[in-house]
């Protein structure tokens, strides 16, 4: 993705939270949705922002997304509040809440709404963010941690998770789980699932995992 496309992704994620109970959106919520959008990119046929992420045991952090949000703040399109740094092991994590500056974003969002490609991406981001909002503010950041690919016990912490395996390589655990859900739906319901249905079912499967009860 180009820097401008990265900023568009960031803008659309923040917008996807705009009418929810967790708006302004926290950095953790934004990175969580961006990670899940990358993990589910093949379901929606969208381009992932990151094709590989470092497994750290905390919300997967996208440096590209971080830079994109900073750029949007610099352009006055995103407002930031409650900025603080929190120690996570040897590093400091930025915590902040982000909201759109409606006046400066209005025209850009109107243009994006008329673009079919970005419309699909926004639909994906909105559906993912709506699902994770359902987990509640506290558990929302755990959604990425319990994703099938990220939580794979065969993948050690501090190693890189490849979200876009080459042709011929095994698909990601997330893709495998979605394939299984699709097969089950075809058997039980007799039809193919839409990307939104698959996303809802997949993220709802994560719900109990965020409580650690499964």
């Amino acid at each position: 993705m180009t820097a401008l496309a990265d900023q568009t992704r960031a803008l659309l994620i923040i917008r996807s939270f705009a009418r929810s109970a967790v708006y302004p959106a926290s950095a953790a919520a934004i990175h969580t949705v961006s990670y899940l959008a990358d993990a589910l990119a093949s379901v929606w046929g969208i381009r992932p922002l990151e094709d590989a992420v470092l497994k750290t045991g905390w919300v997967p952090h996208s440096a590209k997304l971080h830079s994109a949000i900073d750029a949007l703040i610099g352009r006055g399109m995103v407002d930031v509040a409650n900025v603080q740094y929190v120690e996570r092991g040897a590093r400091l994590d930025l915590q902040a809440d982000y909201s759109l500056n409606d006046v400066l974003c209005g025209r850009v969002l109107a243009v994006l709404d008329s673009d079919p490609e970005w419309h699909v991406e926004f639909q994906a981001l909105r559906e993912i963010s709506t699902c994770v909002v359902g987990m509640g503010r506290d558990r929302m950041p755990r959604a990425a941690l319990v994703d099938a690919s990220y939580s794979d016990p065969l993948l050690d912490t501090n190693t890189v998770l490849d979200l876009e395996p080459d042709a011929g390589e095994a698909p990601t655990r997330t893709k495998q789980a979605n394939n299984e859900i699709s097969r089950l739906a075809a058997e039980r319901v007799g039809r193919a699932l839409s990307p939104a249905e698959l996303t809802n079912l997949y993220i709802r499967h994560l719900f109990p995992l965020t409580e650690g009860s499964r």
Partner: protein
Amino acid sequence: MTAETFARVWSRESLEDTLKDNFGAGQDVDMPEDLRFVRGVARLAMKRFKVKNESASDAPIVFILHPQGLDDPPPDRTSSGRIPMLDEGRYEISNRIWFVNHTVNEGIALELGPDDDDVEIFRMLRDDLQLGGFPAAVIETRDGSFNARFYPRGLADSTSCQVADLNQQSISLVDVQSALDDIYQATLCTPDAQGHVVTTWEDADSLLPVGEPELTVQALLRVGLVGRFIGFDIWAEQPDPSGRFDLLIVQSDLFDRSTVTRHVLLELKVLKDKASTGGTVRPSVNRKAIRKGVKQAAVYRDQHSVRSAALCCYDMRATVHGDAAFEEVGAKAAKKSVELWIWHLFASAEAFRNHHYGPIADEEGVEDSE
């Protein structure tokens, strides 16, 4: 997570449980938010009162599409705090006012007291809390009833209220025809009713349709049917070895949502005098479309184990044909148990008026041809 736990969590059995509990979520992604909201409310209410056997509420249960809740809740009211995973149906919903998002998977509630009657609840929401303009849904469970009243323009505008019976277990062809009549009157009968964005007409004055008017009709009917049959699902155009059906009205079992009853299949055809390019469409082409429609309706119905099927024709031609359009296929359709319905899409409000009420004569007795 251990390898053993991971394998169990992502096993086929575990995923199957998720499918049984949640199939249907996200089906309405392309619907307006207020429709998703009322469907989510109905689904939650059915889960609570039909599956979890919650006792009837002493007061109407009000849901407001206002995810943020109240900045300053009334001091004499107890607030629930934010409740995650609300749609899983773990929490009692009775005797509360709920502020939820459009998928009703998260919300916050204000407790109602024993003195809160219907009048007081509505007054408080409209006047004290100034929430009369937000889309609202009211679940009624008293006196053995179980219905959802949907106020798309808010509680302050009761004229827009629609009622859905949540006990409804089946849909008859009569129900569907009545719904299609209403949708036709509201969104299809004339270019004005259709509006300028989603329309079958490229240029109504010249009887010129858009490129694929069938898609417009399908989209308008789907939204209309979703709003009308709130406890049901409307599937559109599923790929199938024998082709694609247009609309299918189904209902998920409350205890296993992946078990689906298929009630009515609708095959749609648009009849035209002209193609979108301006070329003439011969009468034989329309007759062939009707013959094909009857066959498709019967085949798809049998293939998908649907209870009944209807061919719905939307006629954009200049002449109003009515049921005469089905002369050639009537016997065959009856033999195959396919209902035949037709609605005329008038090219102007004047043509609609003239057909239903006759031409309006001016003071000199001259008929107005506009």
